[in-house]
């Protein structure tokens, strides 16, 4: 089940090709870049913005914050909120970009890291495409520069034979570069960022040259610090970043809303039947996730242990979608406790020994006593026993 990364966005979509594609007519692509999709708002903001702008910034920091958080301009233009969450976070993020420190957005899946980073880049530099997607196989060339080997062999090392990375282009043009999933990148490749971020220069020893960053350059990285299989940032690199942790939805209602909305979208694309009365079950899944994640029950009276998994909103979505598929194909089309129980068990119990205890304790001390949760308790007991 693919885990959607950007939940807070109204119209989500597929990751597009991150190449240096130039502006295309908005209507023709599946998912336009932020700077195209919201071009009108950006232009209105730029027109209304009379505050000082840092060098090469398209907008002032205040206008960037307004672009993300939404508001109404003096001329009546309504800026839609791109990020629904604490104002403080956006303000710190924008302010960081105006200093010479890079910005690191941390958070579990489903907290709109990528979404925020894209819109920040679009508002600050008017271009969100200078992107390096971090994977376990991201090579150094993706961060520094590569070579056009045909030219290299034909003409020898020259500036023309050099293929700049997005980061290098951002440095030269004073733009905002983005690195997605920084912690997926192997540690040695990560560390090539240190020189770029501290010295603001990228040496090209083959040519005896260097590319120096011009004012306006900065970098936004996103990372997931709670997943498994990540490469911890070295503290040398970590020191170059100001860190902003994007929180999970603040209230259960907000989270239920996000889950319900995404489940409906996914369900439509998977051609599952629409779920009647399913919102109770969604609320239950979200409640379980939130309680285990926060280590305390919703009423605040009982503490519970937290399992090792992240229990992100994205996982809640996949649990509900899985349950829905189960109900559609093998059940009576109504989402029932039994349909989600197995999914929850799988999401919670990542470590077979410790997490199972956490889960059983939660079942026995919290779920068993709760009004209206009898079916769910029984369903969970059943799947727990099956798995034993």
């Amino acid at each position, binding site marked *: 089940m693919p885990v959607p990364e950007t939940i807070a966005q109204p119209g989500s979509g597929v990751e597009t090709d991150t190449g240096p594609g130039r502006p295309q007519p908005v209507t023709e692509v599946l998912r336009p870049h932020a700077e195209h999709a919201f071009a009108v708002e950006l232009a209105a903001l730029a027109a209304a913005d009379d505050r000082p702008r840092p060098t090469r910034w398209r907008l002032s920091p205040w206008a960037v914050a307004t672009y993300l958080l939404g508001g109404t301009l003096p001329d009546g233009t309504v800026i839609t909120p791109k990020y629904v969450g604490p104002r403080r976070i956006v303000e710190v993020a924008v302010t960081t970009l105006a200093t010479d420190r890079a910005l690191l957005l941390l958070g579990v899946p489903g907290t709109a890291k990528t979404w925020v980073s894209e819109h920040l880049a679009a508002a600050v530099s008017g271009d969100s495409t200078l992107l390096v997607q971090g994977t376990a196989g991201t090579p150094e060339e993706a961060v520094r520069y590569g070579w056009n080997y045909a030219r290299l062999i034909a003409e020898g090392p020259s500036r023309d034979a050099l293929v700049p990375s997005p980061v290098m282009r951002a440095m030269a043009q004073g733009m905002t570069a983005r690195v997605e999933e920084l912690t997926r990148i192997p540690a040695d490749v990560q560390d090539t960022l240190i020189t770029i971020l501290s010295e603001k220069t990228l040496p090209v020893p083959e040519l005896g040259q260097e590319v120096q960053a011009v004012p306006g350059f900065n970098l936004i990285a996103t990372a997931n610090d709670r997943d498994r299989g990540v490469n911890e940032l070295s503290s040398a690199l970590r*020191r170059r970043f100001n860190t902003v942790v994007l929180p999970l939805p603040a209230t259960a209602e907000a989270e239920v809303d996000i889950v319900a909305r995404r489940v409906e979208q996914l369900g439509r694309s998977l051609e599952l039947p629409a779920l009647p009365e399913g919102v109770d079950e969604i609320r239950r899944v979200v409640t379980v996730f939130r309680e285990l994640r926060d280590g305390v029950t919703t009423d605040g009276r009982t503490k519970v242990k937290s399992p090792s998994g992240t229990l992100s909103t994205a996982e809640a979505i996949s649990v509900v979608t899985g349950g829905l598929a189960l109900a559609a194909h093998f059940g009576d089309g109504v989402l029932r406790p039994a349909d989600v129980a197995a999914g929850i068990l799988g999401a919670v119990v990542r470590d077979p*020994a410790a997490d199972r205890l956490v889960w059983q304790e939660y079942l026995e001390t919290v779920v068993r006593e709760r009004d209206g949760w009898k079916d769910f308790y029984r369903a969970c007991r059943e799947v727990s026993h099956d798995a034993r």
Partner: protein
Amino acid sequence: MASDGGTVSAGPKASADPMASGEGPASGGRLTSPATVRRGGGPLLLGVRHHGPGSARGVRAALEAEKPAVVLVEGPAEADALVALAGDPDMRPPVALLAHAVDDPGRAAFWPMASFSPEWIAIRWALDRGAAVRFIDLPATHTLAASDPTWSDGDDGEEGFAGGGARIDPIAELAGAAGATGAAGDGAAERWWEDVVELCAADDAGDPIAPFDALAEAMGALREAYGHGGHPRDLVREAYMRIQLRAARKEFGDSVAVVCGAWHVPALTRKTTVAADRALLKGLPKVKTELTWVPWTHRRLARRSGYGAGIDAPGWYEHLYAAPDRPVERWMTKVAGLLRAEDHPVSSAHVIEAVRLARNLAALRGRPAPGLDETTDAVRSVLCEGSDVPLDLVRDRLVVGDVLGEVPAGAPAVPLQRDLARRRRSLRLKPEATERTLELDLRKDMDGERSRLLHRLRLLGVGWGEPAAGRAGTGTFRETWRLRWEPEQHVQVAEAGVWGTTVEAAATARARSRAEAATALADITALAEQCLLAGLSGALPVVMRSLADRAALDTDVSRLAEALPALARSLRYGDVRGTDTAALAEVAAGLAERICVGLPSACAGLDTDAATAMRERIDEVHQAIGLLPDAAGPADRWAGVLRRLADRDRVPGVLRGRAARLLLDEGRIADGEAALLMSRALSPGTPPAGAAAWIDGFVGGASGGGLLLVHDERLLGLVDDWLTGVPAGAFTDVLPLLRRTFSEYEPGVRRTLGELVARGPGAGGAGHSTPGVPGFAATLDRERADAVLPLLHLVLGTEVMA
């Protein structure tokens, strides 16, 4: 009473003529300002926010400029006698004026003052300059006589958060009027005030009086709109203040400065008649009160501690007041120092970046200078790398702070001492320097009270009585104490005075704070036991909550198992002492639940020593679960756990054997099933050492296992068969364990077992009774057996219980 003559000026009567040295720029500015504060050359009215560092700076500057002969401070009028102590070199803020009713020390009110409180600054200024100090608020004798002497009511009208729903928050109102609305909700008003008053007052270039003028004007408008704004008592207090102000003016002319909550300033300038004010004060109830200074802490100043002194961040405010310049830079350096001391790597570059981020954030948010919000955001993002864990440390240690005030030894006695003396009199316990032993029978009221008092004192760290081993052993209704009063215990009592005004209140507060600070589960169970012994039902909810929280997060089942017996014991004590133990029972049940969940996996793969320790835990838990009220549910689940233990191969033999035995004793499995379990455990494939351990667990120890073998020949036969089947090589390995198992039996049982084995299997038939035992008939004589029952009931108390 205090209005006519109770006032004692602290210093020498003001001698300096305040007008003689009127300083140029200040008085010039004053004349041109819209003089609400000093209408018609009247007294200098300095409206402040209690504990506002900006207000404090402003007050100091204004007093320096005007040099009044007397300073009137909002505070209980009786405190005039205590003013001189504020100048004592041993007095270190934060301190509080404490007023309490003489007959009822529990009735008390506090007026806390920190080093950055405007009131404190004004008092110190006056003492240093030889000006007189008078407290002008309604005397505590009246405030304490009112039905609800919560101190927030006695304090200020500014902070509307303290309770009553209809109250308005003047700061929020002003902020709203100034257009400061924010997504941060209630933080917006706070921030507005910080920007406009606290942070701006830091630059002292301008006219020191002007900010007070502006504030007085704004408050005047508010008072016009809202009247007393939900504090009807304010009208009475203000009438009293006006009377005091008139008296002061009669004595000192216009050379008078008043430092009071900004909310009250408009009321002090109101034109009323003396008669009208006196009429308001007529017939107020009175109670005999005493006042003293007590040490205070920053934590109590902070709002979240529940005392509601009105400020979130005493540490930050103190820093703002104390820092000579560049407050943000100095603050970040402090934070970095703290984080380094706690092993978080923080470099100077971090500090630089944090300061920059805070500045830029302030600019983005349109604030004149970084406030606490900006600095906290910067600390989180740069110094703490986004993590809230070190940030909590910063909040706790710096933003709130650990500062503890001091009060000179000459301050009047704290009410706790008085309360203790009263209780000692009523309980007829004399403090004697020679040691004596006190026997208490808790079923008597007087002795019960005595026991509670001694237990409470122990909780407070006053070592007057030490429990001694009583002659009745561990009986639940007898206690033996060794009493000895030593001089230093006076000091201990005085120290304990910070916790409260009566022994009970202080012990409750202390127990609560210990419960919140405790980390180990066993500490809290011990504390719970102490609370029950001391009859502190007020502290129990907090202790129980803390206990439940720790238990929920503790992953070590053996620690949980250790804690449960103490709880079960407490439940029994609770019965004897008549305390409410419902909460305790609930926690105990939760604990039992967690043990049931975690025990099976905690028992897997233990080595011999750990298994032996675990066996004891299991025995204890088994007993404890039987003691729980409404034990049927937990007992069923516990039986299920034992069942799983008995069945699991990975559980050490001794535990499996023990579990099987407990099940058999409880009648949860039939005899035949026990034999099945045993034969499985002793089957030839099992390593002999494991099998021997199983036997040890099943019949070993002082649990009457020998008799079981005597009475059930089938089991004996199984053991016998197994033993004879052990290979010669392994026999020497298992011999020590078996020897230990069987040597603990009583000689008679051992002899009988020997005889049975010697006689050979099956001789007595397969029945449960063994006719061969000497002195026993072949069948049971029911009549004679029944004759024992009444006595048994009496001994066990079963009839009473049922």
